[in-house]
């Protein structure tokens, strides 16, 4: 046990503009240790890594609390360059590679081996030549360590992603002083066999005495190779466990666990009635949120939730059904098949959508509240138009009255219907989006990330509004959210999407660990 720590992070805290996003994080790494950090989106994993790397974003927002010790010495890591000098390397989630360079050139970029040339005697360092044989043999050595049988002179463009990833790793281990390598969700983009190979490579690196920080959400991987596991939740450290003394269920529970505020429906409701929405093998090509064959069935009057980690495809489901991103597969609305890839058709069949991208897709920021509320139904249902002989013009009075009613019903805080939505707070903007969807008088309302980027009080109001719509108007609501707690507080059933498919459907009252397992990539089907 006398072994000294390579890296220690003590009482690390960080706040952005007064919001505490990390507090009291303690982390210690020994040489050759593989230490996993797990947590949901927004648990603080990236912030922690940004601190470790001295990223600009940390220092431009007031630095961090606590201290970082490298080899037992306190260090101020004020820039990524400093982090590299200290021997901290990183394998990025998105590859930082130059596609039109060879593997060697990528590995050696900016650290090229040089040899003196005729000119360098006179003009110095800058005019030295690259020592390609040396660079190639170094790269070969690094690649061999990882057991990759690919030639070092191959161009990176066109390599399978797995090899790109390994090239990045080779670059890190080629750095002679490297002590710690951070792997940020390295398996997210890899196929299973590639992922296995990567895990092998990680073990080999660790055997060389390099410590590894492994950020991931795939729990089985964590258990397979880690020595220690740290679980973060909401910016705090929940537990640090040795892998021997824990199991996947416990980690899942630690990761998700939070008190769930029950908002609605006193007891659990079951729906046996008509099917409102059914999908069969729905595929949606939404960049970053690819849906890969989703089968769902939602009943009339149900409050249905779609959850899962970011990038797994949960957001793509609603976008695909609404025709905003190209999709394939079959969708039935109230028993009638829906033509995909055409938003007008989706709306004509009684769907309405509150987008997750409020400022991008959800609002006309430079227009008035009233126009924002009515425009979709004006365009698709010809409401709010008045006939003036040959032309139909906007019905000002009708629009105004409707907007006033919505402002009152949804309690939108504004100076009046003519105010530009740009000037509203996030919560009120969200209500404007909901008001527009309601103006369509939909059968099924899709709501994506309704509480993203709005403050706590407003969150509650938005959720209560949705619950009221569901209960009073018996509107079927399908809500997509990254916040599991939120889904569990309002939904009747929750589908967890993982890798573009439904991993399973749970009830809000099901144990935390079930949610954690499904999100962590363990597939499981059960009737619900």
């Amino acid at each position: 046990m006398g072994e000294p720590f390579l890296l220690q992070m003590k009482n690390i805290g960080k706040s952005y503009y007064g919001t505490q996003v990390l507090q009291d994080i303690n982390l210690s790494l020994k040489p050759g240790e593989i230490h996993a950090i797990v947590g949901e989106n927004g648990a603080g994993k990236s912030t922690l890594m940004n601190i470790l790397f001295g990223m600009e974003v940390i220092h431009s927002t007031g630095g961090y609390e606590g201290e970082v010790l490298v080899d037992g010495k306190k260090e101020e890591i004020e820039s990524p360059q400093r982090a590299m000098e200290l021997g901290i390397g990183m394998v990025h989630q998105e590859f930082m590679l130059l596609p039109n360079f060879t593997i060697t050139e990528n590995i050696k970029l900016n650290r090229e081996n040089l040899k003196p040339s005729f000119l360098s005697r006179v003009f110095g360092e800058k005019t030295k030549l690259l020592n390609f044989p040396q660079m190639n043999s170094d790269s070969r050595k690094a690649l061999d360590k990882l057991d990759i049988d690919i030639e070092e002179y191959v161009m990176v463009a066109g390599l399978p992603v797995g090899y790109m990833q390994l090239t990045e790793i080779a670059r890190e281990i080629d750095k002679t002083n490297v002590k710690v390598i951070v792997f940020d969700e390295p398996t997210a983009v890899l196929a299973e066999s590639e992922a296995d190979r990567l895990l092998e490579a990680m073990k080999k690196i660790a055997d060389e005495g390099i410590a590894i920080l492994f950020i991931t959400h795939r729990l089985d991987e964590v258990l397979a190779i880690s020595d220690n596991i740290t679980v973060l939740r909401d910016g705090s450290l929940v537990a640090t466990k040795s892998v021997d003394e824990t199991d996947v269920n416990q980690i899942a529970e630690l990761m998700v666990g939070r008190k769930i505020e029950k908002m609605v429906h006193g007891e659990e409701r079951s729906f046996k009635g008509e099917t409102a929405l059914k999908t069969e093998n729905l595929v949606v090509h939404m960049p970053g949120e690819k849906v890969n064959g989703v089968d769902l069935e939602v009943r009339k009057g149900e409050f249905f939730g779609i959850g899962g980690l970011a990038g797994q495809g949960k957001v793509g489901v609603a976008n695909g059904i609404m025709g905003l991103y190209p999709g394939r597969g079959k969708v039935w609305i109230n028993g009638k098949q829906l033509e995909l890839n055409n938003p007008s058709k989706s709306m004509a069949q009684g769907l309405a959508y509150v987008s997750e991208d409020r400022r991008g897709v959800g609002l006309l920021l430079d227009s008035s509240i009233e126009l924002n509320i009515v425009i979709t139904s004006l365009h698709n249902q010809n409401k709010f138009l008045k006939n003036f002989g040959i032309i139909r013009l906007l019905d000002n009075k009708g629009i105004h009255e409707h907007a006033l009613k919505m402002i009152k019903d949804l309690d939108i805080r504004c100076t009046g219907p003519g105010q530009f939505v740009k000037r509203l707070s996030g919560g009120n903007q969200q209500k404007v989006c909901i008001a527009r969807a309601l103006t369509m008088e939909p059968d099924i309302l899709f709501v994506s990330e309704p509480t993203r980027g709005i403050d706590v009080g407003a969150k509650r109001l938005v959720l209560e509004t949705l619950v009221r719509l569901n209960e009073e108007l018996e509107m079927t609501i399908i809500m997509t959210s990254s916040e599991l707690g939120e889904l569990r507080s309002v939904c009747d059933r929750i589908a967890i999407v993982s890798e573009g498919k439904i991993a399973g459907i749970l009830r809000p009252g099901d144990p935390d660990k079930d949610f954690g397992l499904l999100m962590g990539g363990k597939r499981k089907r059960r009737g619900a």
Partner: protein
Amino acid sequence: MIKDFAGKFLANFGLARVIILAFFIFLCIMAVVFQLDIAELLTSSLVRIGMWGVLVLAMLPAIKSGIGPNFGVSLGILCGLVGALTALEMAYRLGDSVQFGGGTLFIIAILISLPFAILTGIAYGWLLNRVKGSEMMIATYVGFSMVSIMKIAWLFLPYTSPEMAWPIGRGVRVQISLAGRGITRLLNNFLSFNIGEVIVPTGLLLFFAFMCFLVWLFMRSKTGVAMHAAGDNPRFSEAAGINVNRSRMIGTTLSTILGAIGILVYAQSYGFVQLYEGPMFMPFVAVAAVLIGGASVRKATITHVIVGTALFLGIQVVAIPVANAFTTEWASMGEISRKIIQNGVILYALTQAGGE
């Protein structure tokens, strides 16, 4: 209250516009100091505003539909010129049997230019839909190229009327006088009256107001609202089931039509039809005017059009005599200041475009 208003004014108006406004006021004060003929200045300001108004208004549907200020409004201008020449040719060829009055001829010119403008607008809109993100650059060069192509066309189009054709060789003249056909100042003189020594070109201003009204009406129709949304936020509009490309095409076409009508209004007031180089730099004046009025490359209102036209063309009118009165060596100062303001304001607006 006044301070409040001033603050808001500055925020909404932008520093560049405040400077321009200050410059305009400075010019006006100088005009008084130099004891220039104020009535004369006001009269020509009013005429200028009416002359350019519709051309500046042509910017509105373009900006609203999301293609930005229409630097290629010269396409519309060319359509208008074709309309004008064809109408004149008609009057000449049918001259023996039918006598056209000035008003009729003006309307005929508009009617002839319309189909050209519509077809050109659709084709041009189709092109602009293919180059999203760099519309302004493409528009400028499309404008330049078409003006150049039409320079050749003016030589070969079969216009034979002696008013238009060169006496020797082929092709039409650089400037064609409208005096003989009773079109000159047709709108200007309609219901025109005097206030003191200021002559108000009632018809001209009324026509501008009427066109503004039509555009205003259009913007309140379903198509107009869709167009506004498509320009404001294309992704939103697609989600709302609006055909963004179609809206942009409608905007472009409307802008082209207004350009065609605009040049006819311009020509009748000026008394000449200017061909060849004439339309080359006209779009820049219109763009600068609407931007000075407070529009940005993504947002514009009819108020911006009216304010901008008044301000920018007001400066043009006042600057030249003031500069001349100041020192005769600076005779070209008026023209130079116009160019500085025109290009400066376009530059300013373009630097603001990337924001938000």
